[in-house]
């Protein structure tokens, strides 16, 4: 099992006072997305949504989320990366 760190996620949502949260999971973890949403909705006031598409890395973040008034994107399976400069 991979650590979902839901306690940390809940704490971060509360601390940031996030109103609309988008979760993004890699393919191997997408089957856990309902569990994550259920926990967020149970433990916080935030509305939570699931990114339907790809999650290839920290290089691959959902775009256009401002239009939907998403204020926090949570991505699993990756950490901070350093973009190569060209």
């Amino acid at each position: 099992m991979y650590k979902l760190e839901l306690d940390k996620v809940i704490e971060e949502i509360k601390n940031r006072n996030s109103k609309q949260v988008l979760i993004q999971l890699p393919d191997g973890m997408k089957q856990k997305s309902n569990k994550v949403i259920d926990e967020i909705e149970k433990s916080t006031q935030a509305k939570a949504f699931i990114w339907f598409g790809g999650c290839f890395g920290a290089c691959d973040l959902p775009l256009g989320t401002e239009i939907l008034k998403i204020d926090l994107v949570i991505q699993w399976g990756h950490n901070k990366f350093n973009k190569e400069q060209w």
Partner: protein
Amino acid sequence: MVELLLIPAQWEGEIKFTQELKNYLEENNVKSIALFASVQFTELDNLKKEIENLGIKINTTKAKRTNAPLQILGCDSYEDSFEDPIIETSDLILYIGDGMFHPKALLLAQINKEKPKPVLILNPIENKIEEIDQGNIKDQLIRTKRNLRMFVSAQTLGILVTVKPGQQYLNAAKNLKEKLEKEGKKAYIFIDDTINLNQLENYPFIDCWINTACPRIGQDDIVNIPQPMINLREANDPIKALEDLEK
């Protein structure tokens, strides 16, 4: 402003030093290892101790795009992706993780080497090992050479740019277009989010494509499409890239 939170999703289970791994290391008389892992499996203190107890030296480096010790990303797939040349100075590359995407990066990083090192995968979920070698990327090598030759003779080029922030290189694409057009070629820049290679067939006027997004598109996905495609870094000096592969 949208905020971002990254959860690495560390593996909860124990990463075991299996008898199968011990046997492999002893049978192959391994004296030194270049150790890599995907971010879920980077807590390896116990495993490292067990390996060192066999008298094997463990070499580590930092892959340039990463921020966790031992970590490798799928885009660390070129020789210069690492701060130290530990692949050359080790007998074996040991990768801890599941799937083939990351360990194949370690093969691709040696694609131009005369004596590439095999990669041994320890999958801690299944507690199994598997060795992969250059045979696993043979098709990529053949296709990359063919594509480089086709790029050199192409007259009309298509440069692919993604809007994904971590992979977006529009300025580099514009610079490349200018360079190509100074050489008498014609280049068009195409923009998308996830690069859908099925779209290529809609642009039959393009002789060869240049990918500026994830480099694995121009290293792996090229074997699944008939259209020639190379990566941005090869486009800057295709002749040298070809010579390196044909050494």
